[in-house]
């Protein structure tokens, strides 16, 4: 069918889908495709897990020098 979404198209629309910004008919095509495609279902699941795991990544801890500098800045402000 003309209007069927391909897997190659779907993987480019995942963020738009998750953010809810797809046009209604594209949104429907997206879900229709997902319901019949194991590969894309896994892909979608992997993207969700990627987002979840990224949320668990923490930036590097402060170095002792950084911490000292910032505490000095705080104490100077407190005194002023």
């Amino acid at each position, binding site marked *: 069918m003309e209007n069927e979404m*391909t*897997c*190659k*198209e779907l*993987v*480019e629309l*995942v*963020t*738009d889908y998750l*953010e809810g*910004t797809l046009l209604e008919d594209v949104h429907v095509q997206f879900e229709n495709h997902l319901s019949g*495609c*194991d*590969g*894309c279902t*896994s*892909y979608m*699941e*992997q*993207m969700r*897990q*990627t*987002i979840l*795991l*990224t*949320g*668990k*990544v*923490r*930036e*590097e*801890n*402060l170095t002792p020098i*950084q*911490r000292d*500098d*910032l*505490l000095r*800045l*705080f*104490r100077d*402000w*407190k005194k002023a």
Partner: protein
Amino acid sequence: MEAQLDELTLLSLLRQRDETAFTQLVEQYHSSLVRLATIYVQDTRIAEEVAQETWLAVLHGLDLFEGRSSLKTWIFTILANKAKTRGGRETRTISYADWEDRPAVSPDRFNDSSAEKWPDHWARGSAPASWDEIPEDLLLSQETLNIIREAIDQLPESQRSVIALHDMEELSAQEICNILEISETNQRVLLHRARSRVRQALEDYLQPEH
């Protein structure tokens, strides 16, 4: 570790010049602030200075902060403004590398567009496989999180800042657009490219056979 204080408590403690509240805030955000500053000022030492100036501005501005945005967003906005001024440009031009039209998934994992059967669908043996069977210990291990961090570090700078602000700091799309001065559409494109590359790095690590 002590329980993390919520923003309102932090704010009222800070206004009473409480040092532990300040320590918690800098532990939470300082590294992210330095990272964001580096997209405007290339030198990491200058980025560090800009982040320090931001903290000073936060402390001096505490009594003026009206809580119309979250404390976090307020801090990141101050940082972005200072970094822009310091970097000598009002709006950042997003680099070519950020827009490079790299597909989310390598094209050789799909059937040819002209294939008779299932054009542009996953090629045999190339479809992603579920991560459900992967033990949670591995999925949530420090090693896995390091893979993500390395993948993020390798992204072009605008993609890196969008994914860090959206998926790590969990700021809203609207807040990110204001801070980076980009449109919502551009924000989503950058976010999508960034996430797609991180997913690929994770797949390479978790399922090397793919």
